[in-house]
């Protein structure tokens, strides 16, 4: 079945998928929906499929499914299941935070951007808490979120901040969209996307406008004995902490202070300060809730235009272009995006000269025309 769907998404033209959605029986609709879901990875098809995608928007959330596991201080993943979707809260605060934070993140993507989970196709959200002992980290392993309890001296448990949870899940979203290479500038953009949408999850949960938000990443994560308020500041990169043990927040706010390093995949957690600040400046200039316009511009650019190798200049060009498409050329929104990038040291290029990304052939299919499949869907007995 999967092979058939893989072929289908490459071969069947959008209008045919639309017709299948409008006129087909339940089984045909399901196949068409799957085909559209899979083609989410092919950015070039997005625009053409817009009308068909409208059918993908039912009234209620279609597939929020969260499962939380515990590693019981070990390293095996995913570990022992402790809470599944719809089950009551556990007595374990980390379990409940991981569950609720995954829900808040799912809701932002679904309610605001009509994205059904990380892959756009209802992927289950798996999280593991209590990973190793005194573990000062949280990560996305390509399939699930993993959270440590912190050492208690410098770091608290990593589920304590909802933006950390939104950050990790957004790595999954990025993986299924542009799949930005986790190295150098594209890696810093990948990190920045996670900080941006992690912060938006928090702002929406707190019902804060752009000027009310703290724009901090990981507030509450550092213990009281550390001199610092968070791990990163999108509002003022480089000011989140300054501590004798942890050192000073190394993030730059603009290209003049870009850090060249081989560590941390080329400083992906350092230079993300630059696009982070560009997003902050955009959101504050536009005003209101940051997820409504600035977030929409960033999301649409990341979904439809970014590629795995997009760098800071590309991000500036493509978000500026997207702002014009969504809210009008030379409108206040596009001006806000443009000015924000200029302030961090990057001048967006002329939007109309940007090449459109071309759809790439997907591995494992799409070579032979599945005429029999199409026949069976439309005329089949």
């Amino acid at each position, binding site marked *: 079945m999967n092979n058939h769907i893989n072929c289908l998404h490459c071969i069947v033209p959008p209008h045919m998928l639309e017709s299948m959605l409008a006129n087909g029986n339940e089984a045909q609709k399901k196949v068409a929906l799957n085909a559209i879901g899979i083609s989410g990875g092919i950015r070039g098809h997005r625009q053409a499929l817009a009308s068909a995608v409208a059918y993908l928007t039912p009234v209620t959330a279609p597939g929020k499914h969260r499962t939380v596991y515990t590693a019981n201080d070990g390293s095996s993943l995913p570990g022992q299941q402790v809470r599944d979707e719809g089950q009551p809260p556990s007595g374990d605060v980390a379990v409940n935070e991981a569950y609720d934070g995954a829900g808040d993140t799912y809701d932002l993507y679904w309610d605001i951007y009509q994205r059904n989970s990380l892959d756009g196709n209802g992927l289950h959200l798996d999280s593991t808490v209590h990973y190793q002992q005194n573990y000062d980290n949280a*990560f996305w*392993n*390509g399939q699930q979120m993993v959270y440590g309890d912190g050492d208690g001296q410098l770091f608290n448990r990593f589920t304590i901040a909802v933006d950390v949870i939104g950050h*990790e899940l957004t790595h999954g979203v990025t993986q299924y969209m542009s799949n930005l290479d986790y190295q150098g500038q594209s890696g810093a953009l990948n*990190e920045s996307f996670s900080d941006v949408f992690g912060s938006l999850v928090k702002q929406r949960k707190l019902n804060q406008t752009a000027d009310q938000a703290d724009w901090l990443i990981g507030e509450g994560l550092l213990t009281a004995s550390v001199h610092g308020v968070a*791990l990163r500041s999108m509002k003022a990169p480089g000011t989140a902490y300054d501590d004798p043990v942890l050192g000073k927040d190394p993030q730059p706010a603009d290209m003049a202070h870009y850090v060249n390093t081989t560590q*941390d*995949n080329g400083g992906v*957690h350092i230079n993300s300060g630059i696009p982070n600040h560009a997003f902050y400046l955009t959101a504050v200039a536009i005003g209101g809730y940051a997820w409504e316009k600035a977030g929409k511009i960033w999301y649409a650019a990341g979904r439809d235009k970014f590629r795995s190798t997009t760098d800071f200049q590309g991000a500036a060009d493509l978000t500026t272009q997207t702002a014009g498409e969504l809210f009008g050329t030379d409108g206040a929104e596009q001006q806000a995006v443009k000015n924000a990038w200029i302030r961090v040291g990057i001048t967006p290029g002329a939007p109309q000269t940007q090449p459109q990304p071309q759809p790439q052939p997907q591995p494992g299919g799409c070579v032979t025309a599945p005429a029999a499949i199409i026949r069976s869907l439309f005329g089949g007995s």
Partner: protein
Amino acid sequence: MRIEFVRSGGFAGISLTARVDSEKLAPDESATLEQKINEAGFFDLPGQIKPASPGADMFEYSVTISLPPRTHTVIVSETVVPERLRPLLDHLTNLARTGKYR
């Protein structure tokens, strides 16, 4: 013997480093390190060990050991650390945490 240890990456992006010169260590501490290096089969490990799926926010360890005439560097992502190497990485992480070996 000289050891350069860096743990970079992670959600916080804060690096942990240690530079160890065995001549400046107490004899028992030096012997413990050499034992863990031997048990890891350090000089036979590949220079780069990366996971199939890159993920994000994982720690990356870089360990360079000079034990004349041999010098070898191993760069490994935390989710694919070979079992035999784990005790050495844990030991070096603890040394780095003391802040005495920067």
